């Protein structure tokens, strides 16, 4: 990379509009003649719907139409698909029961979609929705993943409510490894259900043009092209050429806006049926009920070690809650994004993982910030902490003893992945130094004098980002390729339009991508415009999730820039009367090697569009498209250490210090990277101390608003201290790895390790609420 803005904390280009109220989110937009949609949602977790009586509601003022599942069936609208087929331990494909946008016979969770009311105004639609009479015949429900296999059946297609029973690793090999164990650490743990809560609720506006037969759908999507593909190929049959999806400014996603949901599908179908645009904006209450939730695993883990504390084998048995239906990518989260990460940063030679995915009467569960990798890291880092305490070994020392060493890369793990590069001890050492690990004992004693229990917790995490080589994911069951595309188009005046299939909803791509392009092409950053989020403008894309935007999307941009430079060299060679091989490109100038004969990028761009003096065999224009399919995942890794203080009288846990040392490879914009780390830690902290999606036994969501679902707030958090180490990714042109999920992956075990350290107990489940902590503190005090 040439010197320039890359590596600098360039202020964000998108901030002007957000700070002045000029952001344009879906709910800010209106279409002439639009109708408001309100969904009639199931109030039962499990019931047969005998009848939907809409007669009274149809009489309500302003009502234009009320639709139920059979109306969509008439128009052959299909089921919302799962895009990743997991093959179970017997070689059979997973069970993927139908998931219709409006239910046809049964409701399977509270919030399930029974009918939609379209009316002139939102309040009129709400008024009428209350008058829709649904005749339910209640069925027994189950919300517990652990109890799912013996529970009442949700889907005929999935006996025992089992989606799949899947294995990674060899049973014989793991038994062999355990037979040599000097010590086996066993832990039972729960990874608590989370509700994503991007601050902008989901929304959709659909419009149909009967003249051209074109549909336009404005959607709060992280990946408009993927949404278009799903809607076209699997759900509506509308050709991709006739369906434009626009995801304008989107107010956070964290995974929850990857998926094709019932609501936007219904709007898209209904807008043609009624001949008017249809808009829907979710309430927060609806988001709680019907956004895809995250996590919800129950796990038993065993770690076998030799007498020196070296890991011999890891055996993991997990039950993963899929919710009531299989969301678009739900199946791959507890398998290929989870079990494959169970080697962590360690040389564990044998890993065996069995995952049973089950259906329950709860909202569908899918990828949420980290997706599988936080669950894997929690399993590992919790278990290693327990092992260290059982063995009486310093937890940092036990980790170091087992780290993959820098000279062992590329490192083939026993769970399919090949790590390209890393230096785990460097991150751990830096984090220990930053937090003054040596001074912890004194801080603990000082806290004790104040009546507080102080604890320290480590988390040495790794993640697989930049998902991923298409051939690899294809062999594992993915229904799509996971490349990214970019178009870099010079205009005649020297400005550059960059069209990317990645989508930003807070990540600052307009700034980071501009830095990359400006430096690579040697043009002023002000001359670069990033275009994203519109299938009508951006030719192709796969979207933003799994920390892939820079590693995959940025690499596609780099490749397109490379093509632009290559073509520019041909134009420059012609203008400078030199051979192409002699043209060097540096800092925005094409120069004949060893001479001062030079042409600027702007001159070349102008010539490309005003080709009066131009190579005969070359097309005019300077506009290149590239696709990039990664060669491997990227492997960001690092160590977070936190210190907590517990008030034993109340059980309140305060985070008093936090250091995060992450290796993200090359960093383009450190300001944005640090911001991503902060936000990730806050979400991980939420999981560890505050957040828990809870259903009662009958399937009612008890945490259905911010009154009961505890979101991290400013006074729950400290300032974080962020450090970096760097080993550049070996296989992408930017050397970058991705930073969006690291904090959410690293934080939960760091906190629980610290809380249990403070309390002197081996384990407790998340979230570590005051009452739970208080009870453990009481027990610990009684034991003393």
């Amino acid at each position, binding site marked *: 990379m040439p010197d320039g803005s890359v590596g600098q904390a360039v202020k964000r280009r998108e901030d002007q509009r957000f700070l002045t109220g000029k952001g344009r989110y879906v709910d800010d937009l209106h279409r002439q003649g639009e109708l408001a949609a309100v969904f009639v949602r199931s109030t039962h977790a499990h019931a047969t719907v005998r009848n939907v009586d809409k007669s009274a509601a149809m009489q309500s003022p302003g009502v234009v139409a009320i639709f139920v599942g059979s109306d969509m069936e008439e128009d052959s609208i299909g089921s919302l698909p799962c895009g990743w087929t997991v093959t179970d331990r017997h070689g059979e494909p997973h069970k993927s029961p139908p998931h219709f946008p409006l239910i046809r016979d049964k409701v399977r969770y509270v919030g399930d979609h029974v009918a939609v009311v379209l009316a002139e105004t939102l309040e009129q639609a709400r008024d009428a929705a209350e008058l829709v009479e649904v005749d339910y015949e209640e069925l027994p429900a189950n919300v517990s993943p652990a109890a799912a296999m013996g529970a009442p059946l949700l889907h005929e297609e999935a006996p025992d409510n089992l989606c799949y029973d899947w294995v990674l690793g060899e049973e014989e090999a793991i038994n062999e490894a355990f037979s040599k164990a000097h010590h086996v650490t066993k832990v039972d743990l729960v990874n608590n259900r989370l509700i994503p809560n991007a601050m902008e609720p989901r929304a959709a506006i659909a419009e149909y043009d009967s003249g051209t037969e074109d549909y336009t759908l404005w959607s709060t999507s992280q990946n408009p092209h993927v949404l278009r593909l799903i809607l076209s190929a699997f759900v509506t049959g509308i050709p991709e050429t006739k369906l434009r999806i626009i995801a304008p400014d989107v107010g956070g996603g964290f995974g929850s806006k990857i998926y094709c949901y019932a609501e936007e599908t219904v709007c898209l179908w209904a807008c043609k049926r009624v001949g008017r645009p249809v808009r829907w904006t979710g309430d927060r209450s609806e988001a709680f009920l019907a956004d895809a939730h995250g996590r919800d695993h129950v796990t038993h883990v065993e770690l076998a070690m030799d007498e020196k504390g070296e890991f011999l084998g890891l055996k993991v048995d997990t039950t993963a809650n899929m919710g009531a239906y299989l969301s678009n990518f739900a199946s791959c989260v507890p398998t290929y994004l989870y079990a494959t990460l169970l080697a962590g940063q360690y040389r564990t030679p044998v890993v065996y993982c069995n995952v049973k995915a089950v259906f329950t009467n709860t909202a569908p569960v899918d990828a949420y910030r980290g997706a599988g990798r936080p669950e894997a890291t929690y399993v590992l880092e919790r278990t290693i902490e327990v092992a260290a305490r059982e063995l009486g070994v310093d937890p940092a020392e036990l980790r170091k003893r087992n780290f993959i060493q820098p000279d062992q890369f590329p490192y083939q793990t026993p769970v399919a992945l090949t790590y390209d590069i890393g230096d785990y001890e460097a991150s751990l050492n830096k984090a220990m130094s930053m937090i003054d690990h040596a001074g912890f004992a004194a801080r603990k004693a000082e806290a004790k004098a104040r009546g507080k229990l102080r604890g320290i917790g480590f988390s040495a995490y790794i993640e697989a980002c930049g998902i991923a080589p298409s051939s690899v994911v294809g062999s594992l069951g993915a229904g799509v390729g996971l490349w990214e595309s970019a178009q870099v188009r010079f205009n005649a005046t020297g400005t550059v339009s960059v069209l990317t299939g990645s989508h930003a909803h807070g990540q600052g791509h307009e700034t980071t991508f501009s830095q990359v392009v400006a430096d690579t092409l040697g043009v002023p950053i002000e001359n670069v415009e990033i275009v994203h989020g519109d299938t009508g403008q951006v030719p192709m894309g796969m979207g933003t999730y799994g920390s892939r935007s820079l590693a995959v999307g940025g690499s596609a941009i780099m490749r397109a820039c490379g093509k632009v430079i290559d073509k520019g060299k041909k134009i420059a060679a012609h203008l400078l009367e030199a051979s192409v091989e002699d043209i060097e490109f540096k800092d925005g100038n094409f120069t004949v090697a060893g001479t001062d004969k030079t042409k600027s990028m702007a001159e070349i761009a102008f010539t490309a569009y005003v080709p009066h003096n131009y190579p005969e065999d070359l097309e005019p224009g300077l506009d290149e498209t590239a696709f990039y399919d990664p060669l491997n995942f990227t492997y960001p890794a690092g160590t977070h250490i936190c210190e907590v203080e517990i008030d034993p009288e*109340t059980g309140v846990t305060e985070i008093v210090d936090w250091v995060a040392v992450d290796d993200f490879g090359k960093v383009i914009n450190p300001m944005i990277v640090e911001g991503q780390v902060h936000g990730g830690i806050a979400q991980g902290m939420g999981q560890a101390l505050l957040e828990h999606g809870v259903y009662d036994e009958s399937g009612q969501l008890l945490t259905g608003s911010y009154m009961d679902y505890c*979101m991290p707030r400013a006074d729950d958090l400290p300032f974080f201290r962020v450090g970096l180490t760097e080993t550049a990714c070996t296989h992408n042109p930017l050397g970058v790895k991705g930073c969006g999920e690291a904090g959410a992956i690293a934080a939960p075990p760091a906190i629980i390790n610290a809380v249990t350290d403070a309390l002197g107990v081996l384990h407790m489940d998340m979230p570590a609420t005051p009452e739970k902590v*208080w009870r453990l503190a009481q027990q610990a005090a009684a034991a003393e």
Partner: protein
Amino acid sequence: MYDFGYHRPKSLADAITELQRAEDGQVMAGGQTLIPTLKQRLAQPSDIVDLGQVDELKGISEDGGALVIGAMTTHAEVAASDLVKAKIPALAALAEGIGDPQVRHRGTIGGSIANNDPAADYPAGCVGLGATIHTNQRQIPADDFFVGLFETALDEGEIVTAVSFPMPDKAAYAKFPNPASRYAIVGVMVAQAGSTVRVAVTGAGAGVFRDHAIEGNLAGNFSADAVGASSADEGSLNGDMHASAAYRKHLISVMTKRAVSAANG
């Protein structure tokens, strides 16, 4: 929200007239509880009588050795009042801890006590400080005003006009908030006036109550060490996913100790 007729009288008399005229009228004070309730369609009044312009219900004054706070005085005004801070700093601190700054700018003392949310702060403030509730019809001791879950001694058409607080020798309020809603899981107002100690608890039960056992313990020795255990019957305390009844009972004692320590400065 269901639609309703909206009225904004300028005087208490007009407000009462509007209320009487309405088929199913509802008084609105600051609206910080009522509007969310209406938004969820949990109430369907025919008419809303907004007291926002009734100036006679606003303001803080000292009268006969008591602080008198008009019903339409906001939490922010109580929290910022030099008079309140000088005379009953515990009350200013309580008001400063209600909801969030935006709620405090709109929410009022009259609205809060008339609603009598079992986890609201002011009921503990009123009972703990031995306040008197003034209405357009009568004066009601706080001990008799808060009847039960969202229930008060107010009759139909009766409007809270002011609350008068006698000045204690010492008082403090300590709250353990629900981490999500920030309402009180347990909130305790302790006050000492002469030889009398009052300990009022909110959040823990169906409504505010006095912990007479702790009051007895503190009567002879107003110190944190003397507080002892709460006498509340666990069976009558709230238990939910945020806090069991046993934990709440424990917190009553802990929060009382903290309040006593704060009151003793």
